[in-house]
């Protein structure tokens, strides 16, 4: 018997736990004395966030500040184990969500948390908010997804790169003949046309991001402005949240090529 899975068409009620109360992780910050800082970027594909976090990483590295960059869905161990299963069958929204949660947990337990304890500046290209947006759009229970990630530390700084859907879609599709099944959100039955499906899927994710941006106090960056301008804004904000000794290092050096730091 086939299970019939329908996309969650109805708008979910907004009666939700406030996200802030769910981060047990923040107690860990005080208890374990985390010296590092966690800075993350969010935004849909094509919003330019990866470019910006790469530039941020290079900047910090050039100043000899201990920095570590981690990307979404990048744990080798998890990938190795799930790639076989992914080929075998279609994933349901719950299994899709849990596999990403496993990947995140692996990176969190083995890298993000230990490095924060060691005083690193940890940069994450996508964080729990990506899971929230995607899983909720796929129809998982909002409160459930929040709770699955409730052990994760709240970032010190979250950048949200906001771009209109048309701009992002164009950036992504240039020179790309094919979209992957899950990437296009084809499992949601939004449209038979992968491009149309992709567009609707991404728009729904933007809607989720917009809600979280307010609730969670994201630093919203206009992703359509010049790359240098965006980076200058990013660096300014980063300086405001890092420990004083590191801030001094970043402020002391003035030679920069075209970027007002």
């Amino acid at each position: 018997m086939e299970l019939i899975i329908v996309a969650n068409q109805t708008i979910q009620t907004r009666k939700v736990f406030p996200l802030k109360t769910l981060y047990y992780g923040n107690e860990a910050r005080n208890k374990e004395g985390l010296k590092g800082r966690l800075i993350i970027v969010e935004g849909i594909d094509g919003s330019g966030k990866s470019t910006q976090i790469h530039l941020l990483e290079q900047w910090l590295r050039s100043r000899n500040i201990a920095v570590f960059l981690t990307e979404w869905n990048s744990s080798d161990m998890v990938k190795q184990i799930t790639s076989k299963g992914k080929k075998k069958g279609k994933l349901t929204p719950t299994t899709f969500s849990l596999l990403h949660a496993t990947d995140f947990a692996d990176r969190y337990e083995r890298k993000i948390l230990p490095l924060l304890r060691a005083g690193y500046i940890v940069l994450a290209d996508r964080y729990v908010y990506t899971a929230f947006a995607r899983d909720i759009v796929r129809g998982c229970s909002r409160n459930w997804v929040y709770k699955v990630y409730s052990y994760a530390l709240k970032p010190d700084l979250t950048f949200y790169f906001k771009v209109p859907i048309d701009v992002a879609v164009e950036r992504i599709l240039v020179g790309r003949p094919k979209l992957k099944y899950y990437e296009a959100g084809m499992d949601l039955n939004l449209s038979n046309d992968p491009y149309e499906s992709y567009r609707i899927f991404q728009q729904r994710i933007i809607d989720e991001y917009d809600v979280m941006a307010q609730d969670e106090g994201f630093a919203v960056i206009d992703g359509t402005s010049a790359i240098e301008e965006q980076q200058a804004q990013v660096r300014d904000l980063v300086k405001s949240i890092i420990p004083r000794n590191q801030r001094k290092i970043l402020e002391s050096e003035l030679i920069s090529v075209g970027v007002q730091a």
Partner: protein
Amino acid sequence: MTSRTRLRKGTTKTLVTQRRRTRPADKEEVDDVYDMRITMDEARRSRSPLYYGDGITYLQNDTHLTGKLIVIEGPDASGRTSQISVIQQRLEADGHAVVTTGLRRSELIGEGILEAKRNFVLGRRTLSLFYAADFADQLENKIIPALRAGYIVLADRYIFTLMARDAVRKISRTWSHALYGFALKPDLVFYLDVDPNELIHRVFQKNFSLDYYESGADLGLSEDMFESFIKYQNMLAKEFHRMQKKYKLIPIDGNRTIEEINTDLLKRIGDFLYSAIAK
């Protein structure tokens, strides 16, 4: 069976429309009472899924499960698997269609978990989520479809083992409970309660060696494997006792012989099926 189902469905439908018709006028109270009785009866036979949390929100609401989910929990070497195969034979002989399921058996990552345990040092939460994904895959692709088709699903362990393992590894119980909010509530959950000192003899009879994880060696309880096993199994047993009330686990004295336990289980399952189906 099928003709009864059809008849029942038909009856309910007419009664529901009747109720709708009579309700605004609010006159024939007798009808309403009768209607309730039928609906209750209906609910006993086929039910909308009950979950520990929000459930699987994207499944259609009209998923009706006519089958029954029966879980047997218990430590390794407690005799779960042999009990299940006997129960399956017996139920099939009685004309019930049976499907069995267990942990780490999903196509998605069942094999992967073993591989991961062999090759990597996994974080406790990572391992926990791996198991959850494996379980979710089986729940959605095997258990629920079978229950919809009217099968009796015999589960060789369920979320309780996973939650107990997590709790022993200092993962918050609240978190585990929330994690399994998508899990279906079984109709019956048995827990084979075996004294760890008895258990270790059975483990040796079975394997002649102690499994790394089943001895809780990852927890660093003791340098000595034997001692670690006893300590770990005691912790798990404690956790199961703790869950007993909350999750309505039925403790079964597992220190008896296989035959005795089997008679006990079959009687309980028989009673349940009789009350559920024959009513």
